[in-house]
Every structure is written in structure tokens, then in C-alpha cells.
């Protein structure tokens, strides 16, 4: 239905909530209770707080390279909220909101960015793969997880993410093609945040939008306002239902914007105009959702302030729990190369420890 109505060839964008937090498509008001709305909003604020605190820790020299999500919260949270606990999430590296929804503790997330592999050892029951740095390569894993579901006759689905830059990669093509050929229950979310580091979206491809790349695979695709939580949620939910019903994969382009730098190593003023950023700030997904919730009478400024304070405290406490106490244990460098350490590794570990011991003497 939705995918017929919004054929990406027409370059029509699916929107439910406008920039002022007003419903532009009443018929598509999502099936979310007030509690759920508040939970989602709170998670957006949580995500923003985590980003902002990480950036400030980084400036203080207390954090390493960090990739912020500011401006992309709706794209991430709206999509991830459409899957269930038993479903899989296969991330790239810029989906903080989705990870939070999936149940990854902030402690893991910060530990990862802090530079310790244990951050990617998620608690039991969190069906998410670790961050995948090589762009687009993770899509293959998502497809494989989905193929395995079909083989095993399991009903859970897979949600996976890639950036606008990632759509140019061969792995994007192969993963979507495999998913379609094998009817794998995978929802591919492109977070089109308009840039791949300094490279603008128009340098990536001449196709009018990225959603229409789905046509090459005989797969439905849809262009969605990625700063609109409701649109993202609805489109994702429809795609999840297709997947769960055995109808195969879907491609969703979340049209959004990276308000911050690529990572803390990046200086975006080198390649884009402030004016552009200012324009997009007006479309901030949190602002928009806030206006909607206020108009519905669900929150007010006091609520927001209180919530932010709580979240900030939580974030600060979590960071301080790991800070300075997260050096890698030497054994850990060796123990996870194989199930059982090889004699070579045992020897190298032994020799290295002996050297350290020797130094102490």
C-alpha cells in the first residue's frame, strides 16, 4: 500500500509530521500509545545528550574519535522501534538511537568509542552485531542473517543501516541483490545525511534519489522524510511486516542531515556552508517531535528540563564508570583470535609478559 503510493520513481517523499510538528497526513497517525511517544522522545533526548557529552569529553581529551548522530535521531529511532526484541539489528557505525532502542547499554557504547573491544560484547539477548567500519560490508551480514532465518524457518527479521556514501559500494549492490533473490527478511535503511565525510550526496550517484535503487533488485523502495519520526516508524513497520510475512526485503531512504561533523576528527566548514546547516537546523527531528508532543499536551518545558537533567546525570555517571578504568587487559588481546589460543599466540603472550616482568625488576 504505502510502497505503491510512494513509488520512488516519482521522487515523492513520505511525511507525516511537518517541520512545525503538525500532522500533515492524519490518516497515517501511527499506532503508538502516549507512553510510547514519551519513551521515544526520551530516547531521542538521551541520544542527543550522549552525543553532546561525548563531544565535550572528546574536546577535553577524555574521549577518542567519536561519530555524532545529531540531526539523525528520528531516522534511527523511528526505524529501530519497528523491530522487536527477537529481531536483529545490523549497524554501520552511526545509529546510536537504534542501538539504544535495541537495548544496548550506554556503557557498552561508550566503552566501544573509548577504545575497548568489550564495548562490542553486548549483553545476552541483545541481537545486534558490533559496529562495522568498512562501509557497506555489514549489509552482507544482514542478508546472511535473513537467509538463515528462511532456512531455519524462523520468523524474526533483520534491520540494517548504511549511509548515502555506502550506496556506491559494491557490497551494497550484492547484499540487496542476494536479499531479494533469496527473499530474505531484511529492511535496508539508508541514512542519507547528505554527506560521506566531505563528499556530497550528488557526487555519489546520479540517480534522482537513493530509494529508487531498489528497482534494480525488484524490491520495493521508499523515500521517507528521515527527520519525521512518524514517517520513519510507519515505513519501517510496513517493511517489517512485509519481511515477516515472507514478502522479502525493502529499501528505505531516510532523507536527513548530519548537523555535526563526520567525526571529531572532521571540520565540516571545509566543505559546506553554514547557511545550509542553519536551514537544516530548523528541521531538527527532536524540535519537531517536541512541538508535536507539546501540542498534544504530553510534555511541557518543565518536563523537558527535568528529563534532560536526569539523562545528563545518567550519561555522566556512565562515562565516569568507564573512564580511566578501561585499559585493555593483555590477555584479552590474545584470547579471542581463535576459540583456543594457538601455541604461537601462547608463546607471544608469554614472551611479552616476561618482557614486562623483566622491566619491573
Amino acid at each position, binding site marked *: 500500500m504505502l510502497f505503491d503510493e510512494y513509488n520512488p520513481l516519482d521522487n515523492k517523499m513520505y511525511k507525516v509530521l511537518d517541520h512545525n510538528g503538525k500532522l500533515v497526513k492524519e490518516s497515517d497517525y501511527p499506532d503508538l500509545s502516549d507512553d510510547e511517544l514519551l519513551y521515544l522522545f526520551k530516547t531521542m533526548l538521551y541520544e542527543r545528550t550522549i552525543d553532546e557529552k561525548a563531544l565535550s569529553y572528546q574536546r577535553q581529551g577524555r574521549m577518542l574519535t567519536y561519530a555524532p548522530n545529531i540531526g539523525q535521531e528520528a531516522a534511527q529511532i523511528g526505524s529501530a522501534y519497528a523491530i522487536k526484541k527477537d529481531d*536483529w539489528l*545490523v549497524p554501520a557505525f552511526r545509529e546510536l538511537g537504534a542501538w539504544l532502542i535495541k537495548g544496548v547499554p550506554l556503557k557498552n557504547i561508550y566503552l566501544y568509542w573509548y577504545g575497548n*573491544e*568489550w564495548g*562490542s*560484547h*553486548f549483553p545476552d539477548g541483545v541481537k545486534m*552485531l*558490533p559496529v*562495522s*567500519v*568498512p562501509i557497506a*560490508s555489514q*549489509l*552482507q*551480514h*544482514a*542478508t*546472511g*542473517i*535473513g*537467509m*538463515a*532465518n*528462511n*532456512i*531455519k524457518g524462523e520468523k524474526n527479521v533483520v534491520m540494517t543501516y548504511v549511509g548515502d556514501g555506502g550506496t556506491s559500494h*559494491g*557490497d551494497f549492490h*550484492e*547484499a540487496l*541483490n*542476494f536479499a531479494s*533473490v533469496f527473499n530474505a527478511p531484511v529492511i535496508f535503511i539508508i541514512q542519507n545525511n547528505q554527506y560521506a565525510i566531505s563528499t556530497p550526496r550528488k557526487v555519489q550517484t546520479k540517480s534522482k534519489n537513493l530509494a529508487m535503487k531498489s528497482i534494480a533488485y525488484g524490491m520495493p523502495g521508499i523515500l521517507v522524510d528521515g527527520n519525521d519520526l512518524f514517517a520513519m516508524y510507519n515505513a519501517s513497520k510496513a517493511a517489517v511486516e512485509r519481511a515477516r510475512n515472507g514478502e522479502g526485503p525493502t529499501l528505505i531512504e531516510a532523507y536527513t542531515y548530519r548537523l555535526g561533523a563526520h567525526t571529531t576528527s572532521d571540520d565540516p566548514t571545509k566543505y559546506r556552508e553554514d547557511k545550509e546547516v542553519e536551514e537544516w537546523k530548523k528541521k531538527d527531528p527532536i524540535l519537531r517531535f517536541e512541538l508535536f508532543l507539546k501540542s498534544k499536551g504530553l510534555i511541557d518545558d518543565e518536563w523537558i528540563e527535568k528529563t534532560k537533567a536526569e539523562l545528563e546525570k545518567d550519561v555522566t555517571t556512565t562515562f565516569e564508570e568507564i573512564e580511566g578504568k578501561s585499559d585493555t587487559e593483555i590477555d*584479552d588481546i590474545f*584470547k*579471542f*583470535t*581463535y*576459540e583456543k589460543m*594457538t*601455541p*604461537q599466540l601462547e608463546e607471544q603472550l608469554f614472551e611479552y609478559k616476561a618482557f614486562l616482568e623483566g622491566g619491573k625488576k
Partner: protein
Amino acid sequence: MPNTLNMVQAINQALMEEMEIDETIVVYGEDVGVEGGVFRVTQDLQKKFGEKRVFDTPLAESAIVGSAVGMAVNGLRPIVEMQFSGFSYPAFNQIISHVARMRNRSRGKYYLPMVIRAPYGGGIRALEHHSESTEALYAHIPGLKVVIPSTPYDAKGLLISAIRDNDPVLFWEPKRIYRAFKQEVPEGPYEIPIGKAKIIESGEDITVVSWGAMVRDVQKAMDIVKKKDISVELIDLRTIAPMDRESFVESVKKTGRILVVHEAPKTLGVGAEIISIVNEKAFLYLEAPPTRLTGFDTTFPLPRGEQHYIPTPERIAKTIEDVVRY
């Protein structure tokens, strides 16, 4: 009735028997299903186990390996085929960046019980990219295991171990001896441990280390040098990574001499690692320079030149003599 099989049949039998026992095993790749593989290694598997567990894929090696990563994470034991090892490179990023790293990256939460099979090596008068031996590339990458059998018996036992291993194994099959000879192979599953070399023949004067199709050539060379009263200890490495260092280190301590024979290019071929280990572990026992006899540092030639590339039994014999007479 004895079960006398060539290597293709032995591998096929290993796949059959393991799939029978363990229904989480799936087999896929280009042309492995309906056709049973271009070398017929996966013949009849689809007939027996159906299209869900044995299937053909689109032509895309990165997706074949990358989807296997996902499958392995999600509870299956995928066995995927690269149609030739020379076509594994489109999947190289998946192999080095993910296959080799998932366990370490997730501190053991996820691991990948998967096998990547491929026909490997030269000597079948084939087109470009169908003859190369690049095991060293993969053996350099932490987190991978690399296995190369030299007989039907070993192929079956090693493959079964590879399938049951909880780490990813590259299983490179020397296609030159796919059908070169038959051997008695027990029915029913048995394991040959990964990471253990085999002393094929004991000897006193020199240690020769080899693997895959070259083992037979070394054996032929041994027939030649035997006539000159040279006694060779022949070690089949079987597993390239992780390497069984004791096997050849102990042997060199006895013989004082070592020759490594492989068909891959010399520079940074596996021979280099073996010689370096010998230096580290048996330096004082060495009576002659540890030596390599290998393919040239060139691209593997097209068929009208390939007879020059792979060390022949005669060249091996000559080199053995040279090292022994040093």
C-alpha cells in the same frame, strides 16, 4: 567392500556425512547446487538435502562470504565455495575485515563456524587466475585457519574437522590431484586435527616440508634421491595456519637440513615463515642453509608455460641433493 575414493569423492563424502548428522550445515556458492560444482565436488548434495540447504547463488563472491558471516552468527554452519581460489579476492574484504575478526571484535560473543572451500593451485592447463597458490595471503591474517590436504583420506578427515571447528577455516583443495589417485577412505566421519602436520616418511639426512599437490612430487623426488642413498624426512604440513612448528623443528634438530617446497611465488611464500621458525627454534642444529624451492616471483603462466613454473620432481631431487651435499 573397501571405500576407494579420489579426492573429489572424499570431499563429497565428508560433506554428505556431515550434512546428514548436522542439519545446521548449509552449502552454497556459484554452480554448487544443480550442477554440483564445476569439479563435481558438491554433486548430488542438492538432490539429497534439498534446495534450502544446498543452493546456487548469484555471481558475487563478497556476498557469498559476507552472507555466510551472517548465517554463522545466526546459528548455521555455512560451507561456501569460491569457484576457484583465484576468485576469492572479491571477497577479500569480507574475509580479512570480518571473517577473521568477528570473534575478537565482539570479545567472543559472536564467532564464525564457517568453511570457505576452493579448488586451488596450478597444473591443470587452465585459463588465467585458475592456477594460483596464494595461501600465504590468508595465512598472514590473524583469526583465519588455512588447511590444504594432500590425499583423499586427509581431505575427508580435515574437512570434517574444519566443519566442526568453531573458527573460520579456509579449505584450499589442490585441484591438480582432485582425481590423480584413489585411496582407501573409511566410511563414516573421522577427524584429522587442524594444526597438526604429518610425517609422511621418516628420514635422516634432510627434512622436506611441503603440502597439497606438491607432496606427491616430493615423493617422486625421494624415489630419485633414494638411489643416491639420501634419506629424506617428508613432512606434509596439512595446515598452513596455525602452523605445526614442532613437526619440522624437531625434524630439523635430527636432520640438520631443511628444504621447503611449494608452488606459490618465493617472496613471502609460506616457505619464508617456515625457515624463520627454524632459525628461531633450531638454529644451532643447522648444518646447511634452510632452502626454498618454489614457484617464481611471477604471475603463473598460461598453459604453454606452466611446465616451467611448478617445481618438478627432478628439480626437487636436485635441490635435495644440493642441500644435503652442502
